[in-house]
C-alpha cells in the first residue's frame, strides 16, 4: 500500500478533453491494493475511457459490492457518485438507483467472488432485466482478500500458489451473460489497455445491459506458474476475436487497418464502432455463433477476448416497464399527484 498521495503536478502539455478536464481529473485517491494489481489497471482504463468520452464526472454513479475489486471505485472518478453495497448486492442496488434516476451513467464494478458466488443470482437478474449499465467483473480467479482460495471462476486444473489444482468446474461469466440476455458482452484483460479502453467506451455508450469480464491477475496470489489467470498465461493464450476503435459520431477517427477486415457497426444513437476483425468468422451480432465461438476457443485451451456479442438496438428495463422519461427526483407534485379527476377516471374504469 502506498501512503503517499499522488503528487498534484502533471505534465505541462497534458491533453484536455472537450470539457477541459485532464485524465488526472478523473482519478480518485491513491489505490490501497497490492502493488501491480490488475484491478488498478482496470481503474486506469476506466479513467482513460471516461476522459476520452468527455464524461461529466457528476453524471456517473459507481456501485460495487465487497472484495478487492469492489474497493476500486474509490480509486477512480473521485468526483462521481459512489455506493459500496453489501456483498453481492451491487446489481440490485444498481437496478434500484437506475429506476430512480435514469439520467446517470451506471458503472457496476464487481469481482468474481462478488458476482459468481454470493451475488450470482443478483448478477443474473440485473442482466436478465436489461438494466442500462456497464457491469465490469474484475476477474482474478481467487479470493484475494482472504489470501487466495479458488473462486468460482477459477479454471479446472489451475494451480494455487501452493501447487494444489482446482477440481471444480468454472463459471464462465461471459457465457452466462450471453445466456441471460446481456446486449453487450465482452471479455478483456487488465494487461491490454489497447483492447480494454475502447471496450469500456463502447460499453458506456451502449444503452442496455453491457457486461465486461475482465481478467485481472492477482499479483499476490494468482500470478504464478500453473495459474490460468496469470499475466504470462493470459498473454500466451489470448485469442482476441477483434479489436475495436470506438468512434463517436462527433469526432470520427480513421484507423489504418487492412481493407476488408474492418467492419463499421452502427449503433442506434448514431455512433459507430469500428471493428477490426481478428477472427474472420466471428460475427458479433450472432449470439449463437458467439456462444459456439466461446466454446470452441475454450476447448482449444485459449481465452476468447474482445467484443463477443453486440445487440446494436437493445431494449432496457425502462423501456420494458414503460417508465417516465425523467428521473424521479425531478418530478413535482403535479407529476406525482394526478388529482381528483384522474382518480375518478380510474375508479370509473374499475366499476
Amino acid at each position, binding site marked *: *500500500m*502506498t*501512503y*503517499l498521495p*499522488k*503528487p*498534484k*503536478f*502533471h*505534465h*505541462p*502539455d*497534458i*491533453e484536455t478533453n472537450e470539457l477541459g478536464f485532464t485524465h*488526472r481529473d478523473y482519478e480518485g485517491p*491513491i*489505490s490501497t491494493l*497490492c*502493488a*501491480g*494489481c*490488475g484491478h*488498478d*489497471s482496470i*481503474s*486506469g482504463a476506466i479513467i482513460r475511457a471516461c476522459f476520452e468520452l468527455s464524461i461529466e464526472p457528476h453524471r456517473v454513479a459507481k456501485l460495487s459490492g465487497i472484495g478487492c475489486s469492489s474497493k476500486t471505485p474509490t480509486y477512480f472518478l473521485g468526483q462521481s457518485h459512489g455506493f459500496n453495497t453489501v456483498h453481492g448486492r451491487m446489481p440490485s442496488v444498481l437496478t434500484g438507483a437506475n429506476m430512480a434516476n435514469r439520467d446517470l451513467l451506471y458503472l457496476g464494478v464487481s469481482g468474481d467472488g462478488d458476482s459468481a458466488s454470493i451475488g450470482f443470482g443478483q448478477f443474473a437478474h440485473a442482466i436478465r432485466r436489461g438494466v442500462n449499465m456497464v457491469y465490469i467483473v474484475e476477474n482474478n480467479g481467487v479470493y484475494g482478500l482472504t489470501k487466495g482460495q479458488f473462486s468460482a471462476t477459477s479454471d479446472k486444473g489451475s494451480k494455487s500458489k501452493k501447487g494444489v489444482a482446482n477440481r471444480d468446474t468454472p463459471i464462465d461469466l461471459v457465457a452466462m451473460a450471453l445466456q441471460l440476455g446481456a446486449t453487450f458482452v465482452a471479455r478483456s484483460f*487488465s*494487461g491490454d*489497455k489497447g483492447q480494454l479502453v475502447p471496450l469500456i467506451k463502447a460499453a458506456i455508450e451502449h444503452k442496455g445491459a453491457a457486461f465486461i469480464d475482465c481478467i485481472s*491477475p492477482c*499479483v499476490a496470489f494468482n*500470478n504464478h506458474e500453473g495459474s490460468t489467470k496469470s*499475466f*504470462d498465461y493470459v*498473454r500466451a493464450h489470448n485469442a482476441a476475436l477483434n479489436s475495436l476503435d470506438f468512434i463517436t459520431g462527433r469526432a470520427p477517427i480513421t484507423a489504418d487497418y487492412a481493407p476488408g477486415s474492418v467492419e463499421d457497426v452502427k449503433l442506434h444513437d448514431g455512433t459507430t464502432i469500428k471493428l477490426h476483425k481478428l477472427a474472420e468468422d466471428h460475427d458479433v451480432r450472432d449470439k449463437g455463433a458467439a456462444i459456439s465461438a466461446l466454446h470452441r476457443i475454450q476447448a482449444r485451451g485459449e481465452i476468447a477476448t474482445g467484443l463477443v456479442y453486440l445487440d446494436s438496438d437493445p431494449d432496457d428495463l425502462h423501456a420494458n416497464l414503460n417508465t417516465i422519461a425523467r428521473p424521479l427526483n425531478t418530478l413535482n407534485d403535479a407529476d406525482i399527484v394526478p388529482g381528483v379527476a384522474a382518480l375518478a377516471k380510474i375508479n370509473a374504469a374499475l366499476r
Partner: protein
Amino acid sequence: MKPTDISDPAYFHKVVDCQWACPAHTPVPEYIRLIAAGRYSDAYMINWKSNVFPGILGRTCDRPCEPACRRGRVEKEPVAICRLKRVTADYKDDVTPLMPKPAAQKNGKRIACIGAGPASLTVARDLAPLGYEVTVFDQDPKAGGFMRTQIPKFRLPETVIDEEVGYVLDLGVKFRHQKIDSLKSIMSKGYDAVFVGTGAPRGRDLDCPGRKEAAANIHIGIDWLASVSFGHIDKIGKRVVVLGGGNTAMDCCRSSRRLGGEDVKVVVRSGFDEMKASPWEKEDAMHEGIPILNYLVPKEFTHDNGKLTGVVFEKVKAVRDEKGRRDLVPTGEPDMLIECDDVLMAVGQENSFPWIEKDVGIAFDRWGMPKVDPVTFESTAKGVFFGGDSAFGPKNIITAVAHGHEAAVSIDMMLNGQDIRQRPSPLTNLVSQKMGIHEWSYDNGVALDTRYKVPLEDAEIALKDIRTEVELGFDVKLAFAEAQRCLNCDAETVFTDKLCIECDACVDICPMDCITFTENGEEGDLRMRLNAPAHDTSQDLYVSGELKTKRIMVKDEDLCLHCGLCAERCPTGAWDMQKFYLEMTHAGAACRSKA
C-alpha cells in the same frame, strides 16, 4: 532505439540537471537533503569539497544550476539552490576540524599561482594538502581576487570572504602581496608548475567625444568598484549614469545608491531582455529604485569647464536583417540628454597580459587570448597552466573553480610523470534507496510549495551603509521548506527489464505520464508515440531491452518527479529508486590511480 546504457555515468549524471549544469558538478540534491535534515556542516563540506567557496557562491553564484533545475519545468520556478547553499554556510558549526590538514610532509614540488582569485585558490587548495608548496601572488593586499574587489560588500560581506579564503590559506598556502610584471622572472625561479589565474582585469573604455575633457567624473566600473571595496572611494555625485547591462553595471548602480547617488540610472544599448545581467540582479537593482533605460547608445559626454554635465544618447531600435542577425539602427528621434554628475562605465572586461613576454613560449590567438587546452588547461608552454577568466575570457566564479580543479589534476599528474590527457573518471555510486515495502531513505513526497523569497533588509537601512548586507538569507524554517521543493533527481528510476511483468502499474501511477510501454522505433518516432509527447530532445529517453510482449519500456526523463511511485507500485521490483552520487576526482592519489 537501443537499450539505454546506464552503466555510463554520464547517463544518470545528466538526469541530475543541476549537477550536470554546474561547472564544478556539485552534488546539489545530496546537500539539499542534508539541509532539510539540519546537517548544515555536512552540507557545507560537500559544497566546500566541490566548489571551495560555498558562503561566497551562496550569495554571488551565477547559478547555472537553477535554469537547469527540473522543478522549473514541472512548475514555474526552480529550487533556490544558490540561496540554500548560503544556508549551509550560515548555519554550519565550526568546520575547521573537518578541513584537511596542511601536509605533514612537503613533497618538494613548488607551484606558483599568479592572481589570488577563485581559480588560483582552488589550485592551491587542491594541491597544498598533497604536499606541494604553493605560493599565490596577487597585486592586492588580500587574497580573493575579484570576489573581494568587484563584488560589493552589501552582497558579499568581507567576513565571508576572509573565512573562506582563510580555509585555503590555512592549508599551508603562501600568499605574497606582489604584482607580477614578468612571467619569465617567475618561470626562472624554478617552480615546477605555474598557474595563471589573473582574471580579466581590464574594464573596457568608451571613446566618445568629451571622454578626455570630463575624465574626472567618468570612471571605469571595475576599477571604481575595487576602489570602493578598498575604501579609497566613499562617495559619488547625486546624479549617476551607469553605462552597461551586465552584472558589473548592477553592482555599480547599487553601490552608487549607497554612496550618495540619489538619482541613479542604468542605460543600456540593447533591449532590456537582452541584457547580460542575471534576471535576479536586475530585479534587485530595480527594487532599489534604479530605472533601467534601454535602446540608448552613448554618443557624447557633455561638460562645462572640465566638469561632466551629462551624457547624450542616440535612440535606437532593434532590427533583424535577412540572416536574422539583430542590428541596432537609429530611430531618427532626437537625441536624449541625461544630465548627471558621474558616469560609471561597465561595458565589458578584457583580458590583458602585458606581463607575459612574447618569447616564453606561450602562443596567443588573434584576440590576444592565450591558447589553452580546454581539457588540461595547459598553455603551449609546458608546465604553465591557465584557468578562470584568464583562460577563456570573463565567465564567473564557479567556472573559475572548475578550471582550478582541472588544472590542479593536470599539475599533480604531470609532476607524477603521468599523461595529463588521460583524465581521471569521476567517482560514482548507485545504491538502492529501498528500506521497506514503501519506505525509501529519501523523502519521496513531493512538496507543492512555490519558490520562497529570501528575506531582505529594509531598503532604508540597506541603502544607508554599503557594508550592510541586503539579503538576510533563509532562516531555518524557510530553508527547510525550500529544501523540500527539491525533487531529489539523484534518486534515479532504475528499470530491470527481466523483472517486469508488464502489469502497467507504473504507467497508471506516474503523475507526469513519463512511462510508456510500446513497440520500439527510432527516437524521433518514439518521442511522439509516448503517453505524453517528449518534445525536449535535450532530455533523454530511458529505453529498456525487449520485454516479453516484444514491447519496450520508454521513460521520458524530462519531467519525472522522482516521487518513486512507479517503484512503490511495482510488484516485482523491476523499478527501483537508486541514489546516484557523482563526485569529481580532484588532484591526489585517486586521480593518479584511476587515470
